[in-house]
């Protein structure tokens, strides 16, 4: 462990209200600890921010997967293992279940949480493109109240978000119809090996068509191609109202390439990322059922 633990204090609120009170009262920004699969790594590497940590793990108010009205509501502490196992998620939001199954290894899936993945804000987070593709909203909670932010407006830059210092992620809300089985969908992860590899490129696509065969719904979300996970809105707009044919696949691919800005790093190259991002999209389009 590289971190000097003397610089850290850990507090463990017993209830959500207690946690919100601590957040409201604190002058410094508190570090929120959920499953620890990112923060403990930072701690071990000596790059964790010293100061007060709030351990949310015991807050059962932040757990659970429920159908509420026309939404699926996921507590922020929902683990990847729970996502994988949930009949509701596997049936209604399959991309989320697939993404959860590719995160890290089993031990990480047991501890890692959806809220933690969102809060950590890595552009390579595997669960984030499915959330974008499903029009998720992030339920932020503070002593001041609760507000919902559409996930595609949650991040303001690299690992930066709209969450205020006294707010925590309470829940993730997804419209039930977002993953409707009448829509085609796909989750793609390109990594160095089968498990415990941060993605070179990660993507989630959802596509729906009207009775006349034209596209009436499209979501294309990517990770590891920009400083934050991104929805490619111009690409989505480009295909809406059109029929899928080779010309559309070609022109939409050009739009895709104009809309992403990956970088060279140790895991891959910008060039390769652009290429596989385009390939993933083209294959999805070519294989949309009923073409």
């Amino acid at each position, binding site marked *: 462990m590289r971190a000097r633990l003397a610089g850290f204090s850990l507090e463990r609120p017993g209830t959500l209200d207690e946690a919100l009170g601590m957040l409201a009262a604190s002058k410094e920004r508190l570090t929120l600890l959920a499953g620890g699969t990112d923060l403990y790594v930072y701690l071990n590497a000596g790059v964790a921010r010293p100061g007060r940590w709030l351990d949310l793990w015991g807050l059962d108010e932040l757990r659970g997967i429920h159908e509420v009205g026309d939404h699926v509501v996921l507590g922020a502490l929902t683990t990847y293992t729970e996502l994988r196992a949930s009949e509701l998620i596997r049936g209604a939001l399959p991309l989320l279940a697939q993404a959860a199954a590719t995160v890290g290894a089993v031990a990480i899936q047991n501890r890692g949480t959806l809220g933690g993945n969102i809060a950590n804000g890595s552009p390579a987070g595997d669960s984030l493109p499915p959330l974008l593709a499903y029009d998720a909203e992030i339920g932020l909670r503070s002593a001041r109240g609760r507000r919902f932010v559409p996930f595609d407006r949650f991040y303001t830059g690299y690992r930066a978000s709209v969450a205020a210092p006294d707010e925590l992620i309470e829940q993730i809300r997804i419209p039930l119809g977002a993953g409707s089985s009448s829509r085609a969908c796909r989750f793609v992860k390109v990594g160095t090996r089968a498990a415990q590899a941060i993605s070179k490129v990660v993507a989630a696509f959802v596509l729906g068509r009207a009775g006349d065969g034209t596209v009436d719904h499209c979501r294309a979300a990517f990770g590891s191609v920009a400083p934050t996970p991104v929805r490619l809105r111009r690409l989505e707009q480009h295909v809406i109202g059109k029929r899928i044919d080779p010309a559309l696949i070609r022109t939409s691919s050009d739009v895709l390439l104009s809309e992403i800005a990956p970088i060279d790093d140790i895991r891959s190259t910008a060039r*390769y990322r652009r290429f596989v991002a385009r390939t993933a999209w083209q294959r999805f389009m070519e294989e949309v059922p009923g073409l």
Partner: protein
Amino acid sequence: MKQPLVTVNKSVRKIDGLSMATGRAQYVDDVHVRGMLWAKLLASPHAHAKILDIDISQAQKIPGVVCILTHKDLPRVPHTTAGQGYPEPSPYDSYVLDKKVRFVGDRVAAVAAETRDAAERAVRAIKVTYEILTPVLDAEHAMDDDAPKIHDEEDSLRIADPEKNLAAEVGFSVGKNFFEDSDYIFDRTFVTQYAQHCPIEPHITMAWFDEQDRIVIRTSTQVPFHARRIVAQALRVPVKRVRVIKPRVGGGFGAKQEVLNEQIVAALALATHRPVKLEYTRAEETISARTRHPMIIHLRSGLKKDGTITDFDLDVISNTGAYGTHALTVGCNTGSKVLPLYRAKNVKFNMRAVYTNMPVGGAYRGYGATQGAFAMECLIDEMAERLAMDPLEFRKRNHIRLGESSPVFKALGEGREGVAQSIESCGLDQCIDLGAREIGWREKHGKPKGKGPIKRGVGVACLMQGSSIPGIDMGAATIKMNEDGSFNLLMGATDLGTGSDTVLAQIAAEVLGIRESDIVVYSSDTDMTPFDVGAYASSTTFLSGMAVKKAAEQARDQILHVAGKMLETDPADAILQDGMVVMANGRRLSLKEVALHSLYILDQFQIMGSSSHITHTSPPPFAAHFCEVEVDEETGQVTVLSYVAAVDCGTAINPRLAEGQTEGAVLNGISYALVEEICFDPKGRPRNATWQYYKIFNTQDAPPIKTILVPTWEPTGPYGAKSVSEISINGPMPCIANAIYDAIGIRLREAPFTAEKVLKALKLRARGRRME
């Protein structure tokens, strides 16, 4: 008379398996010596620099810091860290601490402190003034006239040519009129990359003083006896004052055929008179420990239309990094374990190991043969294709056969001339046939496969290695009998998790007619066990196994002698079976009765045997590897769908362990072929020194691996055994490269075959086609 085997060639349970599975096995770190200090090494941030000044005053003030050593505090003794027999064939170009640093990660100073935290803080507080020198980061240009000199010190010994950054050079030529009889000439260059061993247990060493003021070193090593000798040499203490203990080891793969940290830890113990422990972090393991020598391999061959290979000309530039540890011998093996596999009347070999300011090459499973086999097996495939001949048929026509020899055996040994030998066991044809059937070669090879952008292909590679180093390596063992008919087996042979304790116990048990569980194995401890060169060069089963067999036979003869007197029967033709002595006339005695008699009743003496073994040949194991791959032409992703390794290791003493060695080597090799590579920034700093970024394949990435053991009988090995541990790491790189060619028609000669690289090759071809 050859009796049927009872214990040998049986998959008995690994004798240390239960303790490992339940966490009771004792590794280096599982003991704590009272008053132990933590050591930490200051690593150079520069690839090439002179140390002008080291200021330790601030570091010394940190509470808990007990000792800081720099080059000013230690005797300057040129030595090699290569754990090899004396005199080592590696240059003496290393110093425990030096005034110069030659790669990022080279050691500058050592700290011992009461806590790890204090040691780490002290290391950061040491102020070093460097004169930064231009680094050499390109092996091909290391020998240029204007290249900076890496070893400009005057006291290093046996460097081939320090002026040219040449650590070692070797070559030979047999035959004449090269390439004059050939109808086709092939000329190809292959490039292999930096890779790391990644043992689960990193380098860890403890040292303390015993009550007789001797230095006891408990260390994770493959070479306890070489460690004792080299520590004594480097610190100028007598060998008799050093004891090296090897407990359980969590993997070595060659990384621990290196006396890497034993010297500095012993030096800290000497300076402080306190117990000291040093454990590398994963990043230190990658940056500062040892790697596989990257090589540029230029292979030319001549071929006649009738399928006869006429010539081989193999030219190798091996990057040994900052120090020449194993530089000569690894390079020798690139030729000696590869060229003899195929007959050719003209054979030429030249190897130059060059210094660079990059991580240090070392011993790594396969030991140079891995790199050479990549070139050879890819070129063999290309030669077969030129003749429109099945690659299997072509290999069968040209590979070395039973009773044949190769001039290479005599011409090239381990750092010196080799030993002439002929092949006395060879199951390669059967390996080829069985492996081909398993993979479905006939149905799949050369046929268009796959749909859309996903293409499939199959590939093959044939391999040989050696078993021990002839005329040089020695292993010894002692076995003694206890009252209950059990035995203590004391060996210098070094089990690293490989299972050699089990395999060697099986050999002793076979001789003595008992079960392997009646043998108490102890390995290895320089105070307690006889000498053994250690676990390397694929030697333990073959070499130490013979020593064990001979020692057990001595004990057997004594048992028969005592039993004969007890029963007043001539013990000729008696046998040992199920813990009993069975006389030719049917009379029998238990080993327990014999033991009690010999220890307490009459003419008392200890029934014990002690024997050494050296070998005058190094019989090659053979193997044929096959794989089927899928190549995604749109992403460049290569996926190995299935892998078949057919291996002739003579008699497999323990078939399950032999399969384990094979599967481990194959997965290690697949990972090396497809993804593993240490990457550097322009200043020579590794960019992916931790497992967050240096990815090795694990079980989820493993394709189905089928091992087929093809039994042969090697007359010079114990119960017909040859080696099995290294050979199979040599297969995956050429086998996968050949399968990729079968799938997409592109020959890759630069490893690893990452998705990025495969895609680039596909695009280059597409561009070339458009230009046409």
